[in-house]
C-alpha cells in the first residue's frame, strides 16, 4: 500500500488561516452592512437627526383652502412633505419646493408660522404633513431628512 502523509497542516498554518478567514468575513459583513445602512445625519452637534424628530413640536390647521402651520418647539422645520388625499388617491408635495413663496426660505424657525394655499380645494378629504429636518452628514455636508411618516405624520381631516 502506498504511504499517505496523515499529519495535515501544522497548527501555526491552521491558526493563520483561521484568523485570516475571520478578518475577511468581518470585512465582508462590515462592507455589506455599510452599504445597506443609511448614512448617519446629525443635528445639534452629535445627535442623530432621528432623535431630533422626537423634539419637533408643531400645530397645523386647515381652513377655507388655507393650511396654517405653527412651529411650537425649538427644532427648526426645514420643509414639510404634504400628502393631499382626495378621491381615493393622493399626491405628495414639498412645501419648500412647491410653495416657495409661502414657505419661508430658511424653513419654519422657532415660533414661526406659515400659511399655504392648498391647490384644488374641492374634494380634498385629508391632508397629512410630515416634517423634514436638515442636518449634517459625516463629511460635513448639509442633508435633509424626512421624519418617519408612521411616527411623525400629522393628519388633518377636512
Amino acid at each position: 500500500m502506498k504511504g499517505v502523509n496523515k499529519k495535515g497542516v501544522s497548527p501555526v498554518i491552521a491558526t493563520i488561516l483561521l484568523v485570516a478567514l475571520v478578518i475577511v468575513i468581518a470585512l465582508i459583513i462590515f462592507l455589506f452592512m455599510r452599504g445597506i445602512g443609511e448614512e448617519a445625519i446629525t443635528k445639534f452637534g452629535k445627535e442623530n437627526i432621528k432623535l431630533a424628530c422626537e423634539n419637533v413640536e408643531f400645530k397645523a390647521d386647515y381652513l377655507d383652502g388655507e393650511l396654517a402651520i405653527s412651529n411650537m418647539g425649538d427644532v427648526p422645520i426645514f420643509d414639510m412633505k404634504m400628502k393631499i388625499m382626495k378621491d381615493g388617491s393622493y399626491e405628495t408635495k414639498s412645501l419648500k419646493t412647491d410653495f416657495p413663496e409661502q414657505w419661508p426660505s430658511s424653513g419654519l424657525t422657532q415660533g414661526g408660522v406659515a400659511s399655504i394655499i392648498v391647490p384644488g380645494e374641492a374634494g380634498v378629504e385629508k391632508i397629512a404633513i410630515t416634517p423634514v429636518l436638515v442636518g449634517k452628514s459625516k463629511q460635513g455636508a448639509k442633508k435633509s431628512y424626512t421624519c418617519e411618516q408612521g411616527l411623525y405624520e400629522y393628519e388633518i381631516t377636512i
Partner: protein
Amino acid sequence: MKKHFNKNGLSEIIGYILLISFALIMSFIVYQGLVTYVPVSKADCSEGVSILVRNYSCVQEGERYILNLSVKNNGKFDIAGYFIYSANKSNQTIATLPVANFLVSGIGLGTGIRAGNAILFDQSNENSVTLNEGVFAQYNLTGKMYSLDITPARYQRDGKKLRLVVCGSSKISEKINCNP
C-alpha cells in the same frame, strides 16, 4: 523516520493580544454606529413661564389699525419677549399674520424691539421682563384682527451658548375686538 514538528502553535501571549485587539476593533465599530443615538441635552423653556394680555386698545385710522398692547409676565421666570401673530378670520385656530412686522417704535411707544417674528424688550441677550412686570408695544397694521396668538420666549443657556427658546406650551390665544 518520523519528522519532528513544533506542536506548540501560537504562544498564549500572541493569542491574548489578538483577542484583545479584536475586542477593541469591534467595540470601536459598535461605538461609531451608536454614538449618534445618545440624546444631547438642549436648552428648552422652563415650565412655569406664563404671560397674559393685561389690556389692549384698537383704534382705526383710515384703513389702518393701531393696536396698543400691554402684556404682563405672570409666570415664575423672567422672559425676554414674545412671538405674536394675529388671525384675520373669526374661526381661525392658528393666527398666521406676523404682527411683529408692524411694530411701531419711538418715544412713548413702548420698549419693544423686533427680532425676526419676535418682540424682545432689551438689546442685550437678557430676560429683561421680570416677574409681574408689564411691557407695552404699539403696532400699526392693515386689515382686521379677531385674535392674537402670543408665545413667550426666553434666553436659556445651552452649554456655553445663550439661546432664545420659544415656550410653546405657554402660548396664549386672546380674542380681540379689532374689526370694526
